[in-house]
């Protein structure tokens, strides 16, 4: 059946639709480049959504937990092999995503007889300064985009995701504390989860009602001594 080109296109279309349908239960994740480092925010329900990949690299994703794990392991493996064979400085997102992960994702997406990888994700690489930070939005089909203005989100709906990012860019100020930036991300998270329009959304510092979910916040900390820069932050102790 798929030997005919149009059948293949149809199968790919169906697959894209199927993946998007499977992603519907997922909630967004965010990454913001700050003077202190790169802040990663996610809200999980039992399963983690924010992870350490390598010395200066973090990852946040939504999707099927098994597939998130698959991508996380692939990234950790590629990064550590590269860091071991060359050096930690040679582990870069440009190579990690360009030559390892995006190919894996694209192949998995186009192999229509094998199960797809149901993941929407963000990768972050800490630079020496905020200007050198690298944020990448990676889609389930391997398509990826480098984000140059310091804020990125991953969500199931591209239009809403763009609106959330635009809203965050408008409201995050250069001297905002990590607590306030986390709160703004959670404002955007709530709006996306409740399908509220961003045009009417005002920043709120009201306590975030988690409803049994766990807020995960991590920082790729620029000032942390030693090679490892990733650390988890205690959301309860972050002051907005």
């Amino acid at each position, binding site marked *: 059946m798929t030997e005919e080109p149009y059948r293949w296109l149809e199968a790919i279309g169906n697959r894209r639709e199927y993946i998007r349908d499977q992603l519907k239960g997922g909630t967004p994740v965010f990454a913001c480049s700050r003077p202190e480092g790169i802040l990663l925010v996610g809200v999980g329900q039992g399963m*983690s959504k924010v*992870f*350490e*990949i*390598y010395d200066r690299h973090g990852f946040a994703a939504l999707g099927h937990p098994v597939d998130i*794990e698959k991508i*996380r*392991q692939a990234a*950790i*493996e590629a990064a*550590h*092999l590269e*860091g*071991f064979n060359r050096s930690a400085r040679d582990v870069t997102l440009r190579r990690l995503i360009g030559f390892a992960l995006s190919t894996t994702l694209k192949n998995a997406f186009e192999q229509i007889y094998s199960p797809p990888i149901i993941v929407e994700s963000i990768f972050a690489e800490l630079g020496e300064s905020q200007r050198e930070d690298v944020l990448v939005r990676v889609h389930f089909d391997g398509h990826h985009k480098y984000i140059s203005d310091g804020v990125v989100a991953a969500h199931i709906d591209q239009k809403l995701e763009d609106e959330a990012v635009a809203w965050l860019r408008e409201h995050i100020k250069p001297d905002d504390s990590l607590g306030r930036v986390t709160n703004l991300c959670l404002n955007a998270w709530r709006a996306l989860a409740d399908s509220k329009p961003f045009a009417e959304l005002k920043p709120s510092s009201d306590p975030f009602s988690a409803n049994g979910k766990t807020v995960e916040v991590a920082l790729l900390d620029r000032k942390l001594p*030693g090679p*490892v820069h990733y650390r988890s932050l205690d959301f309860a102790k972050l002051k907005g």
Partner: protein
Amino acid sequence: MNGDFIALLPKPNLAQLGTSAACPEHLQATTVFAFHCKEGVVIAGDHRATAGNIIFSDKTEKILELDSHSLMAIAGVPATAFEMARTLQTSFEFYRRSQLQSMSLKAKIRALSRLLRDNLPATLQGFGIVQPIFAGVEVDDPNAKPVIFFYDPLGAQFEAATYAGSGSGSGSIKSVLHYLERWGKPRPAEMSVDEAITLATRLLMTAAEFDAATGGVHPDRRLFATIKLLTREGTRSISLDEMERCWKESCA
């Protein structure tokens, strides 16, 4: 996906190598030791690497941090030892990140043993012998105390109750440590960090007196050993200033 980084690396094919008369004299790194003090474990080494009767380097770093809670002191062929340390460093971090938990102390001790065993062909052919000392503390146990392990070149591991030494100058050091452990007042295990730093400096000066392959410590020229401290909280490098202060105070 079992968190085993070593399994991802290609297997070394050393069995096919042979020794030859044209083979250059291989490097040796000596002398390292570790002993328990009141606050944890002091682990120290000189900076000398030799090739036969040639001093190849007097700036060799032999006390290597494997992660925030474990250290390895290397004696033997540096090429192999450094590679082992790098493999372990990556392996421990790989495990922590991929399995979302720290590797247990027992597994770390075993990992070094496994690398030594994998190095068996080089060891038996005489050009890749490594006799390391490992010091570590269990990360997830708040009551854990630092331990010292020493290894034979084939990978057998032994826990040192009080001290361990390796390398050509370690004979003198172990003799002095044995004496102090038996009759010292205080015994090394009862010493404060400052006292232990002074002892480590003096031990290396003693070893250098009898072993040409042990690099001397010369406080008058601000040349000190590498000394690191391992406590429940993790590893700490003793700075040059700290070693100099302890030395001056001990001489006062």
